[in-house]
């Protein structure tokens, strides 16, 4: 029967389930063993599955993805944790030059079923370099998938799908949501699709597109609009790569107005790709300019100014109103 889980509980439950189902699933990363990770996402797994399936590594971020590439070539399904997304940059070389290419460059002889997990985003008063969101850089890398859950149930189903997927998946966990709420999660081993948006609420007046922790401010803004009798589709993109534009295009065809919300800097963010497709395949549906409510094109400030950097409900509301009033 269902259990009330937080998002980080759901991550742990999904990993445990995958490890139960498949001996090839192992976990690697800094501090994932004894303490179960700095966010406790792997808490208890080391005692339950043993230190040969939950491996504490040295501080070697250039190594992790490549290590997983080697493990995967030999039949394992490694789950590698980067302690914070800001420390994932050294993994980009192996992600782009090897993980995303191995299947293609060997015509399928060697494959790369790995999962790279990282807590991502800001809003928790963390130290410098602990609040990064650069999913857009990952989404530009061919041959990989990028997934971002926005709820405990999604974290469970999507992470299971990611672990079972035959190709590399980067799984970004909005740390602001880790313990912000609980929901019923049934540990039934059921996975969720890795190529589909999820519509969180429906309406015909406006399409709000977002993902990760920004779903909170976006839904709050949608509620405020609803109070004024304006109904918005709120779409959680979920799979940043591959991007399910079919769902978004269908929504905008109905509403004619779209605002995209994300925490990462605006320029070159994933919002740009969504707006670009709207400017092409969706142009004839557009009744108003496509708005973007995002982090600014600055270095993400230390936590003192973070609230002024991140999209707020008010900012979403203002841009949504502008889109609605456009004629």
């Amino acid at each position: 029967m269902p259990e009330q889980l937080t998002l980080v509980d759901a991550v742990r439950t999904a990993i445990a389930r995958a490890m139960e189902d498949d001996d090839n699933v192992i976990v690697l990363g800094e501090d994932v063993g004894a303490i179960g990770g700095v966010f406790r996402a792997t808490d208890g797994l080391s005692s339950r599955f043993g230190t040969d399936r939950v491996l504490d590594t040295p501080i070697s971020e250039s190594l992790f993805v490549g290590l997983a590439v080697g493990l995967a070539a030999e039949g394992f399904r490694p789950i590698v944790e980067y302690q914070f997304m800001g420390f994932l940059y050294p993994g980009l070389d192996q992600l782009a030059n090897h993980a995303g290419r191995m299947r293609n460059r060997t015509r399928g002889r060697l494959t790369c079923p790995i999962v790279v997990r990282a807590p991502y985003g800001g809003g928790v008063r963390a130290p410098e370099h602990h609040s990064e969101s650069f999913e857009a850089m990952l989404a530009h890398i061919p041959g990989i998938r990028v997934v971002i859950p926005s709820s405990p149930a999604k974290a469970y189903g999507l992470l299971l799908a990611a672990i079972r997927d035959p190709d590399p998946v980067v799984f970004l966990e909005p740390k602001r949501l880790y313990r912000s709420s609980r929901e019923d999660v049934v540990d039934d081993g059921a996975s969720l699709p890795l190529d589909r948006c999820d519509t969180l609420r429906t309406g015909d007046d406006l399409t709000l597109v977002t993902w990760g922790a920004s779903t909170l401010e976006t839904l709050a803004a949608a509620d405020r609009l609803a109070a004024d009798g304006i109904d918005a589709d709120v779409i959680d993109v979920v799979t940043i790569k591959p991007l399910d534009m079919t769902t978004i295009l269908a929504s905008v065809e109905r509403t004619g107005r779209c605002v995209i919300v994300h925490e990462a800097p605006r320029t070159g963010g994933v919002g740009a790709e969504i707006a670009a497709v709207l400017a092409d395949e969706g142009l004839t549906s557009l009744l108003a300019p496509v708005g973007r409510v995002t982090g600014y094109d600055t270095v993400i400030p230390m936590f003192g100014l973070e609230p002024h950097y991140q999209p707020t409900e008010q900012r979403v509301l203002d841009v949504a109103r502008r889109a609605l009033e456009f004629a």
Partner: protein
Amino acid sequence: MHDTVVRDHVLTFHVPTRGFDGPGGAAGTDSLATDQGELIGMYRAMVLTRTFDAKAVALQRTGRIGTFASSLGQEAVAVGIGAAMAAGDVLVPSFREQGAMLLRGVEPAELFLYWGGDERGSDFATPRHDFPICVPIGTQAAHATGVALAMQLRADRRVSVCALGDGATSRGDVYESMNYAGVRRLPIVFVVNNNQWAISVPRARQSAAETLAQKAIAAGFPGEQVDGNDVIAVRAVTSEAIERARDGGGPTLVEAITYRLADHTTADDASRYRSDEEVSARWKDEPVARLRDRLVDAGHWGKEQEQQLLEECAAVIEAAVTAYESRAPLAPASMFDHLYAELPASYRAQRSEVVARGGADA
């Protein structure tokens, strides 16, 4: 096929360990005799550091700063480094060298600002040329190497001092930095602050190398260990290395062996991965009491001085808290004002939005 071996040249390398052989060591008193003023200076710096750390932890507990990393038990390493450096040398720290930063002139209020989530904390008034706290483990080693290269190219007899943790020695960029420093015989000293832990990962699982000092062998320069709870030894070994570097002798790796008596940070609970027994055993060797005992034994220190010093430090830190908390808040729009020397036109609209949304103009 052993019979094919007819040649067997063997290269040999040495890694020394230096320090006292425990409290009250004769050599200790020798050196006490030589420069008590300096010793008392280092003692005061260690006590100030400990007072700062205790206050910072308290401020975090009450939500007045964010996550903080205490250097409790490791004061001798940072203070020993700071004491060995010349003012014109450049310190490139990790995030646990407040002892060295304070000794070199960074204000405690500036450090509170940093941990309070305010960029102005890294804009300290002195020393202007030192690097700020570095959070991404090991990445500062590349900066320190670049600084040393600049010093070598200018031949200005300054030295770059890079502090890093035991866990940082597993980072590839630290190795690349050391290897290049060796190739160019750069004026740099890498000090590994080996506190036995990288969050929950013990030193032994960080590397199979018997010592971290021997990592220097891969880069072709000397490495040595020093008792990191012995501020006299840290200062001595580090300044030897610094002066050798200053004289063109090239890099040195100093592994200072100490112990992290505190949790990794205020966000950590060390009891999850190490026993109270282990920790209390290490308390016996903590550096502040160790030097105090020695000063007392030698008749250079007593109750009143101690009492007075504690009061002085408390006052300095209290004043720093007041200064920190009375700083005008950082203007939100300032996030644009140091992004580039001149803000590109295309960013102006975003800045205006921040200002319009109540981020009073900078």
